[in-house]
């Protein structure tokens, strides 16, 4: 009896209906293809692609990553093939699956972002995620994500040009995440996702140098989870738009922390690297929890811990 109830895991994000609240975090799942050898992409609520810019970006020099205690640090620097090849190759690949497509967009200037957004207008992307929080590029990215006014402004611009609903992805490297969430909501964001990585540094004391060539990198993985949960809670209590929570999710229990704190959906990032099945397992585990706690609809769990 305990496990027999029907339960509805569907999530509505700005009118886009996901079969379940679990997606992949941008940059950790390529464009789905590499992991499709391990995971049935049809079982995911959505695939979020690696950030794509108007033109190809070479990214940062190597070493681009380092292991940290209970996590990792990356400074990939948003290497990407540019929007043209992306539309020609990666979107058609994802279209073969019964999952939503969320395209993560990066840029150096507002114009860069707008160019990508416009280019995507006639593509079968379901949602756009605007990355204003990448700590690993000199210009753009985080510069927009650490100042409420810039964040509001770019959101407004993107909204003017976007045909799809817009997710704004926030940086945790701020004094007040609530303020940032309010700013992008004021700018018209349909959905907010957080957190991107926390800026960190690792030093190789034997070689007396930085562990990644970029000096700093973004810390991700289970080590940062408590900070991410706190920020999702604060953001969810500051705005009305739905929140996609992420940061260190490795299993359903972790994901449920975010959901109970106020996230309508979740992303699995770093965990895929050591467990390619992680995202699918999270989706299954959430459903099991719903049955156990007799939650008919996933939204009955969202934000219930106050």
């Amino acid at each position: 009896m305990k496990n027999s109830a029907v339960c509805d895991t569907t999530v509505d994000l700005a009118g886009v209906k996901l079969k379940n609240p679990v997606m992949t975090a941008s940059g950790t799942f390529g464009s789905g293809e590499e992991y499709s050898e391990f995971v049935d992409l049809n079982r995911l609520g959505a695939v979020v692609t690696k950030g794509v810019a108007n033109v190809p970006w070479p990214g940062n020099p190597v070493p681009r990553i380092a292991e940290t205690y209970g996590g990792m640090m990356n400074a990939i620097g948003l290497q990407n093939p540019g929007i043209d090849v992306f539309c020609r190759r990666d979107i058609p690949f994802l279209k073969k699956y019964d999952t939503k497509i969320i395209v993560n967009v990066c840029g150096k200037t507002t114009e860069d972002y707008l160019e990508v957004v416009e280019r995507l207008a006639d593509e079968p992307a379901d949602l756009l995620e605007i990355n204003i929080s990448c700590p690993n590029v000199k210009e753009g990215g985080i510069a927009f994500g650490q100042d409420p006014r810039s964040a509001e402004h770019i959101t407004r611009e993107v909204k003017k040009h976007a045909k799809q609903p817009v997710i704004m992805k926030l940086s945790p490297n701020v004094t007040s995440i609530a303020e940032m969430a309010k700013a992008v909501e004021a700018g018209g964001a349909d959905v907010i996702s957080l957190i991107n990585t926390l800026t960190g540094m690792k030093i190789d004391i034997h070689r007396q140098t930085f562990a990644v060539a970029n000096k700093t990198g973004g810390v991700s993985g289970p080590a940062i989870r408590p900070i991410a949960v706190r920020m999702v809670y604060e953001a969810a209590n500051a705005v009305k738009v739905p929140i996609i929570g992420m940061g260190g999710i490795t299993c359903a229990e972790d994901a449920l922390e975010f959901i109970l704190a106020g996230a309508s959906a979740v992303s699995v990032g770093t965990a895929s690297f050591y467990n390619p099945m992680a995202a699918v397992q999270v989706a299954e585990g959430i459903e099991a929890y719903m049955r156990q706690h007799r939650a008919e609809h996933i939204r009955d769990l969202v934000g219930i811990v106050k």
Partner: protein
Amino acid sequence: MSCKRKEKAAVVSQEQIAENIYSMWIQTEEISDFAVPGQFISMYTEDQSKLLPRPISLCEIDREKKRLRVVYRVTGKGTGTEQFSRLRPGESIQILGPLGNGFPMEPGTGKKVCLIGGGIGVPPMLELSKQLYAEKQLVMGYRDELFLTEEFEKNGTLYIATEDGSAGTPGNVMDAIAQKGLSPEVIYACGPAPMLRAVKSYAEEKHIPCYVSMEERMACGVGACLACVCRTPEIDAHSQVHNKRVCKDGPVFLSTEVEI
């Protein structure tokens, strides 16, 4: 669905074969069925603070018994490789594989080939030397202590170089090639960057096809995260920039395709 998978493999044997160098045989479920020389596996520690894989090349592949051999260096105290070295038969280890492209066999088949290994780049040449049907000159470079030489001797003519001069040609693999007057038609090489750089320029000077196995830090091991890139002189079709992924497009590249 492809042949890559994550498995829990049982340790069959563990042996120290030189200072800080260990040899481990593991029992796989299916990974060994698909593995080819030059591919690698991602090995995971049980230490919950260390989440990234350690990529380790396949040293031998026993398809019949479904076993793989890895030969690896313990790089320091408290490292993941040190934890691997403490595994005992019967214990198990999480692995992901087989990963990467492996050495192309066709170019060398029936030719006079040099297999060049340096340091911890020596092990992957063993399975290649076993599977490649060719006139094989095996040039292995060591700092001081030798390992795997008996196995190599069964699969070709072995030339040794040691930095401290304790065995074979004093110096590096290039010194051995010069001293022994080797003149390969095809080269396969794995080793530290300075060695690969020397091999690459030697091969390109002589217009010999040369396959090099590259190394870079990895997170996903399957081509998704773009951590492990190497520079390419040409724009790469996949990345659209001058980068190839060591884990997926490599680890083996034609020397002219990559900058070292």
